[in-house]
């Protein structure tokens, strides 16, 4: 067991090269603090599941220096403190929910009495108490997902990795799962979420990372990422040539951009916007709207995965090395953490 610091996950230079020279991960740098909900985003094939599987020892990394819960990544014993819900899990149809949880609990070395008590609690948490003794083969996808969540929690882990936890779950179920995640966070657990549902992540994540082409393109707290891209939008009633507006604003010593309907100031500081507003009004222009515009997680995601010069989505990830040419838009691993020091 290594030294347990403030980080639940601390990864450096994580690389994975599959046979055939498919380079799935190209040097992941990622840090997840204890007690936070960390969201991992990225298009299909970006390497998200590969990264999670490396953490769970399902895949062996080509290169990896880092720790999970203070121990070297790949340490088997640490897994007794980590819960995992895989994507597209296949639980045996012949087991009941209770039997599955019992099996997983035993595999995590939980004593029988503690296991039985915990199973009852978990079935209640995931609202499957009435179905505990029914075979999984008879469950709907949403019910399987609930049981899957329960099995990830059966040994009361410190770190929980959930790969698409709301996959196939109806809106009510999603709300329930969000509730469970919030509850786990309140209990001090660290939750590492991988999901395509950006709105879901936005609601529960403290921090997010966006993975593309096997590297982290962006990571930071939701606040940091949003604030760094938030801006003032000033809309003008009558369309005036954009360059005229920019010139007016320049006279007020402000850096602005033409939005088509007015101006955009790359700041949320009202004191910076005020002189621009004054200058516009001094020129007799009517301001119809003045508001701080905060991007959604989807905006951040699109920004990260779209080539700004072409406006087209960048290739998501894994490609054969010999064909791979480093794009000028592809972030180098060292550039990955642009949100925070870690």
């Amino acid at each position, binding site marked *: 067991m290594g030294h347990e610091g403030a980080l639940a996950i601390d990864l450096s230079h994580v690389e994975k090269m599959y046979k055939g020279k498919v380079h799935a991960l190209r040097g992941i740098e990622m840090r997840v603090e204890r007690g936070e909900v960390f969201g991992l985003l990225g298009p299909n094939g970006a390497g998200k599941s590969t990264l999670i599987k490396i953490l769970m020892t399902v895949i062996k990394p080509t290169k990896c220096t880092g720790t999970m819960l203070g121990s070297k990544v790949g340490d088997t014993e640490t897994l*007794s403190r980590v819960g995992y819900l895989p994507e597209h*899990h296949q639980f045996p149809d012949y087991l009941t929910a209770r*039997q599955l949880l019992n099996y997983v609990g035993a595999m995590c070395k939980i004593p029988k009495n503690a296991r039985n008590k915990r199973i009852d609690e978990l079935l209640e948490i995931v609202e499957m108490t009435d179905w505990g003794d029914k075979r999984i083969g008879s469950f709907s996808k949403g019910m399987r997902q609930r049981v899957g969540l329960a099995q990830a929690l059966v040994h009361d882990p410190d770190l929980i990795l959930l790969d698409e936890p709301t996959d196939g779950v109806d809106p009510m179920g999603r709300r329930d799962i969000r509730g469970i995640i919030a509850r786990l966070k309140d209990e001090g657990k660290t939750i590492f979420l991988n999901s395509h549902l950006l709105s879901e992540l936005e609601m529960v994540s403290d921090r997010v990372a966006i993975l593309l082409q096997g590297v982290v393109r962006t990571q930071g707290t939701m606040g940091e990422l949003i604030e760094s891209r938030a801006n003032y939008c000033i809309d003008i009633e009558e369309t005036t040539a954009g360059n005229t507006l920019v010139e007016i604003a320049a006279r007020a010593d402000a850096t602005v951009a033409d939005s088509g309907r007015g101006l955009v100031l790359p700041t949320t500081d009202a004191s910076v916007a005020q002189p621009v507003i004054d200058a516009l009004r001094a020129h007799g222009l009517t301001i119809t709207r003045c508001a701080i515009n905060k991007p959604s997680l989807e905006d951040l995601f699109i920004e990260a995965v779209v080539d700004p010069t072409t406006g087209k989505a960048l290739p998501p990830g894994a490609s054969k090395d010999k064909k791979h040419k480093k794009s000028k838009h592809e972030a180098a691993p060292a550039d990955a953490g642009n949100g925070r020091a870690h």
Partner: protein
Amino acid sequence: MLMQTWAMVIDAYRELCARKLFWITMALSGLVVLIFAAVGISKEGLTLLWFTLPIDGINTDILTKKFFYQNLFQGLGIGIWLSWIASILALVTTAGFFPNLIQAGSIEIHLSKPIGRLRLFLTRYLTGLLFVALQVAVFTTASFFVLGIRGGVWIPTVFLAIPIVIVFFSYLFAFCVLIGVMTRSAMPALLLTMLFWFALYIVNVGDATLVGFREGNQAIVDRNTLALERLEANTRKMVIEMKASEGTENYEPTDADLIAAMPLIERRRTDLVEEQEDLESLKKWAGRIYAVKTVLPKTAETIGLLGRWMIPQEEIDATRARSDAADGDDDETTPKPEATVEITLDDESDDAGQGMDPEAIEREFRSRSVAWIVGTSLAFEAFILGLAGFIFVRRDY
């Protein structure tokens, strides 16, 4: 540590219980046990339920009840049912054991637990033998009681069938696991294992055939060598007597004299040389197939160990003697060929040169050591499992 192992055993048991084939096999085992209960032996012959079927050689004058039931259990119960039919059903049931484990969505659940991959692999392998272990344990226990109650003979050695059948099946299952791990699919695992088993069967039949022919031919060469020596001695005596009658005393006949007096000697010598060459060839091939068999699992011979341990050779010899004696009583008027030499001198005896000695096969197989039969088979199994384990441990899922 034991908690995880026990959890995997319980899981494997539940998996088996969920498969219809497991219960079908169990029901068929019950049927075979019922057949044991229905069949018996009396002074008059074979009994089936309330009927007596007078069959030559099957009565308590020749076969003891114990010998009869031991043979019934070993021949029908183990030799046919458990080591063939039930084993095929077991392979069908367990071929998917590893492919199911390593399929996407399932393997993650297992590998993400605090258990080493090698231990996971080996535990899963051992739990895969549970099917056969349960089947053979239930079958043997039921047979023990049925034979005891119905036949009045209590044969505790039937329980030897449990380890023997499990070890026998483990050879095949190891191969099945290797293919399953390599292909991640149950169907190729099953089909290739059946093919492998068939190849082992062919090797075993080849071994038995060559041993039979080798021993049969050895006996013929020995016999014909002796016959030739006697023929030469008789001819020598005849030539000496002939020369003596011509007035030459103490004549020492040359080889040419012998051949001149008995041209058959030359033909017999030529035949003998050919027979010896054939024998050498047979010995060479039997040696080769023995060498091949040494590195392969010996399925039939492993099962054969049960017969060896359950029914001692003395018991077989005694039964054979009683059977021969009974045959002798029937054929008292038939003269026994005493002068084997004369028989082998007939041209028809050449056919016997092609013959084989089935009893020699049994003698040879019984003489092979347990260490060779089981030890080398387990070495093969360990190698195959090592290879499968290596793939399992190293692979990304």
